[in-house]
């Protein structure tokens, strides 16, 4: 199943109407003929299948109010199933395993990125309580969502054999409940993060320089200038924002199938949800790495909210200048940047 067909799902309803229209038209000329022979003019499965486009279904009328039940045969559904058990499952595994492998290699090659100079002992406030709350709300919920979501995709092959069916079912039920509720926390965290950081994440010329120097990640002692967020962080911000938004939207739709529309829509949302989740997991694992064991002093920013001045000068020189400049000019609006002098 490719993206083109996925897009087609959005117009699947129109497509079905078109197919029925074609069938209807094929009947009409005969209806005008002398003898109406309903037996001879009977539709056949074969003719309907031939007229059927990708991802459409053979559909009719039922008297029960359940609109979903009017679909008779949806031959494309098994291909969703194979995409789900193939592409989505493989991507998810690849994302997690791949991230770990890549970061391990990176660690082995580059090691922990240390502060070049010594720690100054001077702490400056990098993230306010609100910022940290937003981050950790998002981060915490994401981890739960990622684990419970991943469980739905790969748990059956990787966990079930260990736990047995009953216990696995139980944790999966709890996981499902958690996933459905924690999703709201994630959406809140995502929204807050976006609001508090979006202004700092508009790309600018400084980012080009930062990228040109590889962010200083690859070589020791190289520290391209950066404001509050460097280009790498901006990428993570935007990936998280967009990916998170996609996850939120598709997740919402999956939670409210009646709002979402038809089965084809659900499949589409589910597929997007799975693929984006896999991709974002990769990004987030990398982010976790660099924010923790990958870089000396980085964790503090989200831990206590305060970072060492030298760390800040190395990684966010322009930001430090901004903050200190503002402080010297007595701009009281430069909040939370009281150097510990």
């Amino acid at each position, binding site marked *: 199943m490719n993206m083109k067909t996925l897009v087609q799902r959005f117009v699947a309803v129109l497509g079905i109407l078109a197919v029925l229209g074609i069938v209807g038209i094929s009947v009409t000329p005969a209806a005008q003929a002398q003898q109406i022979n*309903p037996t001879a003019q009977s539709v056949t499965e074969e003719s309907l299948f031939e007229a059927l486009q990708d991802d459409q279904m053979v559909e009719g009328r039922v008297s029960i109010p359940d609109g979903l039940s009017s679909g008779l045969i949806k031959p494309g559904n098994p291909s969703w199933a194979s995409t789900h058990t193939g592409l989505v499952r493989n991507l998810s595994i690849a994302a997690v395993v791949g991230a770990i492998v890549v970061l391990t290699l990176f660690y082995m090659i580059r090691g922990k990125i240390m502060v070049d100079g010594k720690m100054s002992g001077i702490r400056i406030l990098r993230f306010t309580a609100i910022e940290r709350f937003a981050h950790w709300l998002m981060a915490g919920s994401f981890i739960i969502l990622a684990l419970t979501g991943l469980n739905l995709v790969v748990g059956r092959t990787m966990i079930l054999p260990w736990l047995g069916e*009953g216990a696995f079912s139980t944790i999966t039920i709890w996981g499902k409940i958690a996933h459905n509720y924690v999703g709201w926390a994630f959406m809140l965290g995502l929204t807050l993060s976006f609001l508090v950081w979006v202004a700092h994440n508009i790309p600018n010329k400084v980012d080009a320089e930062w990228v040109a120097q590889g962010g200083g990640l690859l070589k020791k002692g190289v520290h391209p200038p950066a404001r509050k967020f460097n280009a790498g962080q901006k990428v993570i911000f935007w990936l998280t924002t967009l990916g998170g938004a996609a996850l939120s939207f598709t997740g919402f739709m999956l939670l409210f199938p009646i709002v979402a529309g038809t089965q084809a829509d659900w499949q589409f949302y589910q597929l997007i949800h799975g693929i984006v989740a896999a991709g974002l997991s990769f990004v987030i694992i990398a982010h976790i790495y660099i924010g923790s064991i990958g870089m000396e002093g980085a964790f503090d920013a989200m831990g206590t909210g305060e970072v060492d001045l030298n760390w800040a000068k190395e990684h966010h020189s322009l930001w430090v200048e901004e903050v200190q400049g503002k402080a010297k000019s007595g701009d009281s609006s430069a909040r939370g940047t009281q150097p510990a002098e």
Partner: protein
Amino acid sequence: MLVKRRSKDATRSGLAAFAQNVTAKPIDRRSFLRTSGLAVGGLAAFGAVGATTVRRAEAGMVDFSQPVEVKTNICTHCSVGCTVKAEVQNGVWVGQEPAWDSPINRGTHCAKGASVRELVHGDRRLKYPMKKENGEWVRISWDQAIDEIGDKMLDIREKNGADSAYLLGSAKFSNEGAYLFRKFAAFWGTNNVDHQARICHSTTVAGVANTWGYGAMTNSYNDIRNSKTIIFMGSNAAEAHPVSLQHILAGKETNRANVIVIDPRFTRTAAHATDYIRMRPGTDIAIIWGIMWHIFENNWQDQEYIDQRVWGMDQIREAVKAYPPEVVERISGISGPELRRVAETFATQGPATFIWCMGGTQHTVGTANVRTYCNLLLATGNVGSNGSGANIFRGHCNVQGATDFGLDIGSLPCYYGLAEGGWRHWSRVWDVSYDYLQSRFDEVPAKGGRDARDRKANMEMAGIPSTRWFDAATLDAEDVDQRDNIKAMIVFGHGGNTVPRMGDSLKGMNALDLLVVADPHPTTFAALHDRPDNTYLLPISTQFECAGSRTASNRSVQWGEKVVDPIFESDNDYAVIYRLSQKLGFADEMFKPYEMVQGKFSMEPTPESILREINRGGWSTGYTGQSPERIKAHMANQDKFDLVTLRAPADAEDVGGDYYGLPWPCWGTPEFKHPGTHILYNPNLPVKDGGGAFRPRFGVDREGETLLAEGSFPVGSEITDGYPQFTYGILQTLGWDADLTADELATIQRIGNNDPEAMANVSWSLDLSGGIQRVAIEHGCVPFGNGKARAVAWNLPDPIPVHREPIYSPRPDLVAEYPTREDGRQFRVPNIGYSIQASAVERNLSVSFPIVLTSGRLVEYEGGGEETRSNPWLAELQQDMFVEINPADASARGITDGGWVWVNGPENDSKARVKALVTERVAPGVAFMPFHFAGWFQGEDQRGNYPAGTDPIVLGESVNTVTSYGYDPVTGMHEGKVTLCQISAA
């Protein structure tokens, strides 16, 4: 071998069990009973919120550690007569299994039959007797109910007369119940006794009986397997008689048969046709005459058959010249070549059968329609042989039996007329004096310019049809030709939404002094009106809660065993009729022939003893050979009967040589062992093997021509020509009287009072010994004679049918040429159809109401629908009343599929709020509504009018709110298939 490998283990423990408790309620018996109880609390509870995955184990689970009793009964819905196998444990009907051995249904059912088990679990059943007190339903005891109803009836009898109580019976009765109810009316002293046949096939019975003798399906569902050409006209058997399609489709496939459907709607039956022809509703006569025009034009008729067995076909041949192709196309919309094709196929590719239902019968010209169908069959020689015939699919499970036993305003049981001879016959059978019966009837004073009637004349005058009871309740007393208006309706098992003009019916209900509804469900009769008092509901059990026989459409009589005891406080018809008779003071006379046993609340007659009485009196129709023992033997030996011939091999034990269900006529006494008659009027068999001939009922000659058959006679007949009916006198003439036994002769002497002249007139139908029948048959003769069918029925209005426009015609241009019949009086009330038709034309109603409205059945529901709409398994499948409307009409009105619309009728500003079903199933200018809905009236939801907990799950507008005036002059059948309407988005 069926082995289930279990890779799954259902047991769980620890963490898993803990989660189970949280995520899914633990399923113990008590909690799921509670949940399922909740689920039937209201319609809302059936929706998304209250549904559970658990089911009612106590009601539907077979406990395999306990013995299972299997009871055999018959489906209580349509007339096909499907056998139902019920598994019973501890008095609870726990499972329904396929009845593989039944030659009729071979294990199968339709949606209704497959869900009958629910009927005796019915949460929505009427649970105890109730009455309305100051507008509120209150529970009362049976004793109180019978007492109060009886007192009020006696009061009305005193003040207004016996005819002021209308006894509306039911096609849901067993044969014994129907017979008992007719007898009850006789003992009460009125002919105002009717049932559903009035509104489904009364015109068929009249038309067919007037053509060739008996008012019934000539062949059987099974026999259609032999047909090469099958016409359905005004029949949607796929929805109305689904199991019959098993035989029809099998025949279609093996014979590569032509299946021609002529219908205004492209029905589900039409979907399986080989030729579908759309017609304008109400133009049957023009179409059939148009077909016969082609037949005579091309000499396709079966002239030898006509010469031997039909009288008057020459007159028909002349008459159809007035219906050449262009005239027929102008009337019906069907082109000449199409009809020519039908004519050629039907006439030349035999055997051919013609099937009709209410599309043909429910018209002001219903009887005339039927007679044209008969003429088509006669002209092509298609009556009285395998694979041919008038296959009239009847409606209810025992509408044939109830018709046979005279739940009819114009006849006594087994079609004995209301004339003195008929009454005297039954008074002999009932062992009461004729004078006593006569004394029960009213004297009618002279009024409205009409002469007075004495008791005898009133006893012999047909009553008021069920389609007109409300007119008889609300018209000026001068206009009602009996002592007084209708003051009491005693309704056993009949819906109130199945006849047109519900607005007028509502007025009729409000005008009554007493309304009694005896039914498993409170019908529209209980809910439509706003009567504050004097309204009683009696909970009657279904036929699954009592024993008795019922007659399927093909005349086969089948015995139903009681499956379970009557549920709640309901009781069976036999007991309730007995208790009412007791209260009214004639039980001792009426019930003396019966074996009485202790029932649920009172004594009651056994159905076996009632059937034996029927056997003693039903000579005219051959209801004499079907003893309880023989019928029960048939039920026990269903596997012995052939699928196509319905006959058991000669050597089969107990049932050897019999046709399944001993289809009437089953001549002579049970000991005579007549096998029944699978195919009526069939001369290709000896009479003793089920052969026969047309019945000469209308004399022996007419206009100088014989009415007796010429050169046609049943195989083995000693008289090789036509002959009149057998009497003792004829036996004497033939010298066959010596064959009578001494006992038989003694009986004839008794009936003839030992007067030689009177004895000579004792006929095959009055001879209580069966001797005359026996002797005639032993000489190879048909007891009723060997006559010709009548192509022209000179005793009926329009002896040769002519096309007549419906009262509300969409074609005012044709009304002038083909008007309905003149106004007149029929059945004690006026029929002013002509005036109404003229007024409709004058007022240009076809412009303001431009859409023809027709009606019909849905497979999920039955009749008025109260029972089936109360069954959740069925109700779920059709949750909204709807109108089918063509896309062109819909888009012109801004109507969308599934949207709400108003359907406005042409009379009394009537209107109905229903959902639109936009479909090409109906032609532009035609709309269709099913007739099973009730409980809404002109936009108002009347759910609150039902006693709490007895409201059907699904309610909706009745089509008959918007249907209109129009009555067949022969039977009082209503016009249910053509009226005009306007439809607008709501």
